[in-house]
């Protein structure tokens, strides 16, 4: 057996079911790596080692007793530190929540535990999943395992860094404007922003209610599909939750993308936010892989990135102020400077302006679905490779457009997968977006791409 810390969920589950790998052994492998190496990455803010050992022993006993095994039986995982965990501190990296110990688990955590998972701990995030990277908040920012001088992006920073580093095979993050896909891209792993409403947000500290998505990150798309099977589904306690059937995501991973029509928003990539030549070359190579697998590629035209960004951020700044207004009025010094800058002006946004932005969202979401009706998938890079980990002007949130935000506005599923490495050894990324509630086709394409390429064979060295 290879290093157990580098096993995928799929591989580890088979070995556990066959009694060739103990959940205790697997958990100790991860705890050992975290203990030895996480001081280089700061990907965890809370480690639940003793709880993990107890859960792993229980999982091992169930295997030996021949009991039915859940989809994640004995599989370690971690959670972004905005998921409520009963009895375990949940801080959102903020001094405002330094002593916050929830009394109830987030819905997703309930499902992960019920599926037999073993909770290793809580991952670093940007403050309240929005302001960062920051050095003036509760914990330091996570680092990129491919190069510790580089950023893992945000806000699910520690989540992506932990998976890439072999500290955990699975984690859950959140994505309001790209916070699952950006870190997945920077760290060379797979991360899915599911269709809005497909995964419950109950018990996940909000960033912006109308654009928040909970979702999985893992080394492979196949593992992301397993995690989606566990966490997707209607939750009447989440007002945005969709009451729709959950398909068999693993069964959708046929490897066959023949006949799929892939749209490329060329105006975004060539005019509005031109790619660097290296990223363009990596993207073209990825499209060539899909052509080789029998898909066709054609250009599509969508509304401008700027319109998507302005709409989302106008809505977000108002909602964020609604969430944090009381603290901004009474103890603004407890916020990190980056988060405070990014939300404080929300108090001055008028109701008319917020609602006009919500009206524009209707137009943009319809435009997105109209284009999606003409293709099976959209593809584009998730982002450029990771930049240096250094303070950035908080105003950058308002001045830079993103390839990820349009799919938060539209609510469409969007997956980031690794699509190679640049000359500095940092990952390139491919973003695959699909029709509403057709997360299965997105996962099918991501899985087919990973299996047709060799990018999953390389791990960062720590």
């Amino acid at each position, binding site marked *: 057996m290879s290093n157990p810390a580098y096993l995928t969920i799929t591989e580890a589950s088979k070995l556990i079911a066959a009694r060739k790998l103990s959940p205790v052994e697997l958990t100790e492998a991860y705890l050992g790596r975290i203990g030895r190496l996480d001081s280089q990455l700061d990907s965890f803010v809370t480690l639940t080692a003793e709880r993990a050992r107890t859960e792993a022993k229980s999982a091992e006993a169930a295997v030996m007793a021949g009991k039915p095994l859940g989809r994640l039986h004995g599989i370690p995982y971690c959670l972004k530190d905005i998921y409520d965990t009963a009895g375990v501190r949940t801080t959102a990296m903020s001094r405002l929540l330094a002593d916050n110990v929830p009394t109830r688990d987030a819905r997703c955590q309930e499902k992960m535990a019920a599926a037999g998972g073993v909770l290793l701990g809580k991952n670093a995030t940007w403050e309240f999943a929005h302001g960062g990277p920051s050095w003036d908040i509760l914990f330091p920012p996570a680092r990129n395992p491919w190069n510790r001088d580089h950023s893992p992006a945000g806000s699910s920073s520690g989540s992506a860094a932990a998976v890439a580093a072999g500290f955990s095979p699975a984690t859950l993050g959140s994505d309001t404007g790209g916070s699952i896909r950006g870190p997945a891209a920077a760290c060379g792993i797979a991360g899915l922003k599911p269709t809005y409403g497909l995964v419950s947000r109950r018990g996940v500290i909000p960033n912006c209610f109308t654009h928040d998505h909970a979702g999985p990150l893992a080394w492979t798309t196949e593992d992301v599909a397993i995690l989606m099977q566990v966490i997707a589904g209607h939750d009447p306690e989440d007002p945005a939750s969709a009451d729709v059937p959950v398909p068999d995501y693993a069964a959708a991973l046929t490897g066959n993308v023949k006949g799929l029509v892939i749209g490329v928003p060329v105006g975004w990539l060539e005019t509005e936010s031109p790619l660097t030549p290296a990223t363009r070359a990596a993207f073209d190579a990825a499209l060539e892989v899909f052509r080789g697998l029998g898909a066709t590629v054609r250009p599509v035209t969508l509304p401008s990135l700027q319109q998507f960004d302005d709409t989302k951020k106008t809505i977000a700044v108002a909602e964020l102020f609604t969430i944090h207004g009381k603290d901004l*009025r009474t103890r603004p010094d407890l916020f990190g400077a980056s988060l405070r800058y990014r939300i404080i002006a929300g108090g001055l946004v008028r109701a008319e*302006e917020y609602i006009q932005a919500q009206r524009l969202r209707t137009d943009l979401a319809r435009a997105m679905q109209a284009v999606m009706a003409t293709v099976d998938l959209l593809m584009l890079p998730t982002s450029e490779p990771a930049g240096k980990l250094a303070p950035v002007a908080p105003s950058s949130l308002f001045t830079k457009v993103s390839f990820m935000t349009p799919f938060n506005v539209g609510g469409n599923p969007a997956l980031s997968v690794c699509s190679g490495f640049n000359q500095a050894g940092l990952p390139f990324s491919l973003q695959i977006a699909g029709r509403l509630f057709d997360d299965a086709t997105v996962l099918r394409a991501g899985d087919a791409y990973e299996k047709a390429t060799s990018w999953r064979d390389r791990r960062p060295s720590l």
Partner: protein
Amino acid sequence: MTDTPSQDEIVHLARQAGLDLPDAYLQELVEAYGHVRAMIARLPAGRPHGDEPAHTFVPQKFLPVKE
């Protein structure tokens, strides 16, 4: 509103929002609000009366949860 408000106007708006900020944070607000104003100014206006916002009230979402 598309004109850039003066600092005094921003202080007034901030106080209306319950924000009585120290100078350092007030400068943050002035700068950040400039970016927010620019975003809002780019949003198309003059919409038909009946245009609905993206999030509307869906009463089925508030039916009692079955045990």
